[in-house]
């Protein structure tokens, strides 16, 4: 992974927080996105990200993020702000880069050899790609739930306890028990597994496994939870339960969810960001995107003409 000179400059001087809510017109947004490859005449707003990429009291701020897989320019000049207690959905057709962008937020792209990330992403004011940042510490603050449920082949208890154990969050067995029980309860799984915590995590059904993964993630007490299509492998009832869960969880965590289903995005999220071929086309509140999208591409996607 290489850092651009611009990134270095920003590392030395982190961007200032903006406590005052600002509604900045897209054309004048500082560090605003240019959308190369989309001719100006395609949109009436001059080829930049449409809508409000900013938010009041942002917790995570991405500025001009570019991701390269070898020569493939997967994410192009994406800027986005994420607030503390909101659910923001990333939608878009297959291969548009939403999962790639999501993985940038907790540096999971570090594990991919050919991936290169440039630009800045700050968490609570600090650049997460600066040299002193330990990815281990970052991932304790930004948790992730994956598309296919992947519980460890250990007991349910050990699954949830793994995170607290490695980060040393519990002083003794009683504290650990408390953390495990609380996490399972908040994930809505405790009632079902209360008397079989020693059973293997893989013996649960798909929906239960995903809730176990969610419990595992919140056991570490993160500040942001990233969800990469968490319900795509589940049936509608399990999906509904997890969506209810998201409603409760967003009181404490910021949730960024990547989803293929627009209905899901409409149900769970407060803001929606539409990606298209690696570009962030439009960001706005859910109501506005689904009732009155400003960019033609967004409208095409929502009405089903593309994607």
């Amino acid at each position: 992974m290489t850092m651009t000179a611009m990134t270095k400059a920003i590392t030395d001087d982190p961007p200032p927080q903006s406590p005052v809510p600002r509604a900045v017109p897209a054309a004048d947004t500082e560090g605003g996105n240019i959308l190369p490859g989309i001719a100006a005449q395609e949109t009436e707003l001059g080829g930049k990200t449409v809508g409000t990429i900013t938010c009041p009291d942002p917790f995570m701020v991405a500025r001009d993020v570019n991701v390269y897989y070898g020569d493939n320019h997967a994410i192009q000049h994406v800027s986005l702000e994420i607030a503390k207690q909101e659910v923001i959905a990333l939608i878009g057709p297959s291969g548009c880069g939403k999962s790639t962008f999501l993985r940038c937020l907790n540096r999971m792209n570090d594990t991919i050899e050919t991936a290169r990330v440039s630009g800045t992403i700050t968490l609570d004011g600090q650049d997460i790609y600066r040299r002193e940042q330990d990815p281990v510490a970052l991932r304790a603050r930004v948790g992730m739930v994956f598309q296919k449920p992947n519980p460890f082949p250990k007991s349910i208890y050990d699954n949830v306890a793994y995170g607290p154990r490695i980060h040393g969050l519990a002083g003794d067995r009683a504290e650990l028990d408390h953390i495990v029980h609380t996490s399972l309860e908040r994930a809505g799984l405790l009632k079902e597994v209360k008397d079989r915590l020693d059973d293997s995590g893989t013996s649960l059904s798909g929906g239960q496994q995903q809730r176990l993964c969610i419990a595992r993630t919140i056991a570490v007490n993160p500040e942001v939870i990233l969800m990469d299509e968490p319900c795509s492998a589940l049936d509608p009832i399990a999906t509904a339960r997890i969506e209810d869960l998201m409603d409760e969880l967003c009181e404490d965590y910021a949730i960024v969810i990547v989803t293929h289903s627009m209905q899901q995005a409409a149900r769970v999220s407060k803001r929606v960001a539409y990606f298209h071929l690696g570009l962030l086309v439009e960001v706005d509140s859910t109501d506005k995107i689904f009732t009155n999208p400003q960019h033609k591409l967004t409208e095409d996607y929502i009405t089903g003409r593309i994607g």
Partner: protein
Amino acid sequence: MKTTCTTRELVESGLAKRRRKEYAFRLVGIFATAVGVLFLGVFFASLIAKGSTAFKQTFVKLDITLDAEVIAPNGELDLQYADFDGLVRNGLREIFPEVRGRTERRELYRLVSVGAAYELRAIVENDPSLLGTTQSVWVPASSDVDMLIKGNIDADIDEALRTLSDQQIGWVTTLREKGLLRSQFNKALFSNGDSREPELAGIKGAVMGSFYMLLVTISLSFPIGVAAAIYLEEFAPKSRWSDLIEVNINNLAAVPSIVFGLLGLAVFINWLSLPRSAPLVGGLVLTLLTLPVIIIASRAAIQAVPPSIREAALGLGASRTQVVFHHVLPLAMPGMLTGAIIGMSRALGESAPLLMIGMVAFIVDVPGGFTDPATALPVQIYLWADSPERAFAERTSAAIIVLLGFLLLMNLAAVIMRRRMERRW
């Protein structure tokens, strides 16, 4: 409508030929399996037929007077130089008092093993209070008598071509009639080291030598092999160097084992001046042999761990080392252990490299440690197979049976361990 009928007809007309082909293929498979099983059956049958008799040894009952004057002259117990042989001879002469003349008597004494004297010494050593008493002792018969009893000596051929004369055969018959001859379990095979006398030869020395060697091999090759595999799979950057290393390791697994023996001779014995014929050096040479096998098996086991588990662990904030040791290693362990035991089985059966480093010597004492001179079981088999004495032929087969037994146990252990440690993901 017409096309579907034709398709159906075509398919059905071809069905008979397809069924015939499948049947023929199954027959070929069954035939191949049968050939394999047949060879295996012939191998085991001939082995057991030849070797099973070695587990029994003929013993002669002698009444020995433990004469205090001979064993403890001047009142002092002299176990080292006392003439126990003489006492054995006395016992024999008692049974056949009519035998006179030196030549005849010498032939009589050859009925009993030279090890009989050692038996007497052991008896007195265990219980000195027996001094002066007359005891009935079962002593091992000589290997010629043993072969006669087992039917391996043809009494019909010319006396000059036999190892036992007619007279000796007559004496043996007399002993049998008097009930002074019996076959019992050949304990010497398992409790003695090698010997020039077949009736006293045992595999204990070779077994202990092999044991110490394998101990050195497993304690060195398993940690080094697993660590190398983990580094190559998880931490090494993918570059031309790592490709080169991978090709070389795969190559080493196929190198003839005698080359490792030459390497051991040059490095361990000449340069490092380690003791020749020691299990330590044998173990080091076998480590070099087993290392590529373990590395390859371990890498395959690590690659088989699904990336989703790693991602889940990384996502929780585990460092790369924690991912490897908390998740990858436990899941890869069954494969690694299987590879290790297969490597050990191969090492147990190796003889060529050990010949190079001197473990082919005739060593009588059972080795007590890693630096005592020793031999290994396959080498012992080779040495006995070379011996001209007829009695060694059955003992060679018996030693092979023991070796195969060990290999069977090791592979069984591998299967059991693997089953118990298998986890579903």
